[in-house]
């Protein structure tokens, strides 16, 4: 049984970062940086419980969106039958283990099928599971470079194209990449860093009351998980209700020029390259507004979104720590 998300003490920034990605998956994931033992992995795994259902093609291992990009199989079915069978599927947190081999990441030939039938059939890999879901890599900075390359490839394209062992297959692979890392164990490649929509830092809590509360909840969870779950069920329901409500209004929140101008003024004054930062900041402030049950984006949302979206994108001297740029951002945010 997983520790309930709402029972995690404090760490609001990390929790909000995850929730914003549920509200708008196109934000593009979250990198959680922090010390060991601060509940990073607990939070990501707990998120699974709060995830909503999405529309998907029935029995499609790639969770194809009936009205979106389709896999080779669904494309074929649509041609042959003229329609697809939609169903509802709960979003998932798919884990990518460190010891993964290439074949299991991208998918490959189905051995049993080939032996029995003498036919080559595609067997989906982790990227298939991850489509439209969260893809979680614990200790993402320890992942083998070779695997990172493959991950970056499909993240950039949004599709996984397989040409190996005589099998050809294409399927959509759009996932929210969630990574946790302890910066002391090594840095992350810049290309990979940029793939994460948002970034938060977590630190140990030094408030005595909070520490005691952590102890208390953990002890209660350990002694009777079922009971603990029941006790937190109300909170969990409330939170997932709030997330669904936000999901349903997020697209209707207007992004008028006034908002866009403010965002651009921040990114411009920080001299950020490219436009990914602007786009992510825009989507994040909108998702924040939705989560806060607002009908318009205010300056507060833009300011808060900036911290999520910009922390890991600021140009810094090679060994300025992430976070050292706090002053620069504060300055830029004072303008709006």
């Amino acid at each position: 049984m997983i520790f309930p998300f709402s029972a995690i003490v404090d760490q609001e920034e990390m929790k909000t970062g995850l929730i914003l990605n549920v509200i708008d998956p196109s934000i593009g994931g979250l990198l959680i940086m922090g010390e060991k033992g601060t509940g990073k992995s607990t939070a990501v795994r707990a998120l699974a419980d709060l995830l909503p259902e999405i529309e998907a093609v029935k029995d499609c291992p790639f969770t194809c969106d009936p009205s979106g990009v389709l896999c080779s199989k669904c494309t074929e079915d649509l041609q042959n039958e003229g329609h697809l069978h939609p169903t509802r599927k709960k979003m998932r947190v798919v884990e990518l283990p460190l010891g993964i081999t290439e074949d299991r990441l991208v998918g490959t030939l189905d051995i049993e099928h080939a032996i029995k039938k003498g036919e080559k059939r595609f067997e989906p890999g982790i990227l298939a599971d991850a489509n439209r879901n969260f893809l979680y890599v614990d200790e993402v900075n320890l992942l083998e470079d070779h695997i990172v390359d493959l991950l970056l490839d499909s993240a950039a394209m949004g599709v996984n194209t397989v040409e190996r062992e005589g099998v050809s297959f294409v399927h959509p692979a759009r996932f929210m990449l969630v990574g946790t890392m302890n910066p002391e164990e090594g840095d992350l490649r810049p290309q990979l860093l940029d793939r994460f929509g948002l970034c938060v830092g977590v630190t140990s809590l030094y408030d005595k009351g909070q520490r005691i509360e952590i102890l208390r909840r953990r002890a209660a969870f350990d002694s009777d998980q079922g009971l603990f779950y029941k006790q937190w069920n109300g909170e969990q329901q409330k939170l997932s209700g709030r997330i669904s409500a936000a999901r349903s209004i997020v697209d209707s929140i207007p992004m008028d020029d006034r908002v866009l101008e403010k965002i651009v003024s921040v990114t411009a004054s920080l001299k950020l390259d490219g436009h990914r930062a602007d786009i992510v900041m825009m989507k994040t402030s909108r998702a924040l507004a939705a989560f806060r049950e607002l009908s318009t984006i205010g300056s507060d949302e833009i300011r808060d979104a900036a911290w999520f979206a910009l922390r890991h994108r600021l140009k810094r001297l090679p060994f300025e720590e992430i976070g050292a740029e706090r002053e620069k951002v504060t300055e830029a945010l004072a303008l709006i």
Partner: protein
Amino acid sequence: MRCSSFIGHDEAKLAIILNAIDPRCGGVLFVGEKGCGKSTLARSLRSILPSGTPFVELPLNVTDESLLGTIAIEDTLRTGARVFQHGLFSRAHGGVLFIDDVNLLSPEIVSLILEVQGRGENIVEREGLRMRHPASFILVASMYPEEGDLSPHLLDRFGMCAGFERLTDAGERMSVVRAAICQDQTDADLELTERIEVARKILPTVSVRDRFLEYIADICINYNVAGHRADLYLLAAARAHAAFKGNEDVTREDINTVASLVLMHRRRELQPPPDQQEDPPPPPEHNHEPPPDNQQEQQPEPPQNNTDEQEHDQPPKPHELPPQKEEVFTVGQTFQLKRIAFRKDRLERAASGRRTRTRARNRGGRYVKSVLRQNRDIAIDATLRAAAPFQLVRKRTDVVVINEEDFRYKRKERKMGHLAIFIVDGSGSMGAQKRMVAAKGAVQSLLMDCYQKRDTVAIIVFRKDRAEVVLEPTASVEHAARRLREIPVGGKTPLGAGLLEAYRLLQRVGRKRPETRFLILLITDGRANQSVTEMPPDEEVARMAALMSEQAGIDIVVVDTEEKGRFTTMDRAASIAALLGADYHTIEDLKADYLVDIVKRSFPEV
């Protein structure tokens, strides 16, 4: 050997017992010299665990496959369906994973252990297999710290840590010998087993009053531990201890007794700068009253065991540089380093640039993909996939037909280790004319280059009467930069000690990762005036230099920090560079932009 017959090391023994009572205590790491019984005591845990509890030993040469599980060759070939062969993680589920000399494990294996243990589940996505199984286990391990360090991350996963000293008491030593030859200790063992049995039954009813939860939180805050695992392990250990005593209520004494076991390995390596954080208070007294419930602000003293004999069990202390007359200089101007041609022939190195991966020569390394080119490791999954489509044609009957052309092999990769060791002179002479400011600027410039190449770096500082590794090898250059800022200056110049420390570090890292390439950067004015042996300082330096220059796979660069063109100029660093067979540069060279992407030249890219 049985646990009850184990002589001495009461604290370590207690750790084993508490873990036998409640696995939530999170395992234990034994730290100490060779041959003092660490492994013997760890293995004795087997005899007091409930029967049927797995106790799995993890050998140092373990492969990813044997750890995570792999494809079972025979069954797979016979049935034509992939069959999973369980690995050590699976066998350790619900029990103990024991690792002797845990600090010698390769970083790749360590990261797998951390991942799977943290998740409590093994997710296998490899060799064509997809499989998940529960894998919750506690880690019990031993290490001899001089042979290598342990990642702080892995350290954090041990609920407890106990130090082992060589027994000096003659009586105790005699008993060890006696116990070793006499196997008949079953009565005492039985008694202990019974006591543990009883404790296990009481455990669920053991409760902790709020003020003691507060006490635990206080201790952990005062100890400035990273993260929240310490609190949880301390709570678990205190409960197990209460149960062992037969009590249903955790007392302050329970917490105090187990606190050093839980906390000894969790103090941060180095204290944060004093302006940010006060020094943690001294270890606590035993006979203190708990804080009354209504007085929140009263700070309890953090705990320590009351007996003197436990003082020698203290963990390797964080490197605290004593507060004497010394200065910490800022980091001077950094500068762009330019590339020039290299004197030495670096051809041998041409095949191993940074961030390039070498094909692992032996069976180490991680299987990432299969290839056609023959080597010793057959990739069963890929071979099967190659053969599978032809089975009907080949008229398979009872076993999969594999032909010569089907064979595929594993390509294993391992990140090439490049370690740049900075040996920095922190003696008083570096304070003159603020040479240290310039030296730090030089180091920072070199660090920047390491960052771009993703080398690992380590920093050794020598001053006063010794040298110490102020930064263990790390891939985090941010970390290194922070440590660089903190280097103080003052005292004599034990240059020989600096070289010796570097030599030891080379040996340690080399043992763990034999393929590592080293770059040593010695930043000094060369005015050695303090030895750590009986030899005069200069002779000591010469001896160490000879030792160092004999090592294979090492490049050495000396950066001379002496101010040139004065009547006091001695050029001692230049002659040391000659002894070391090193490249020699002055800071002025560096500043004048003549130089040199030193790091780049030594670890050329492909």
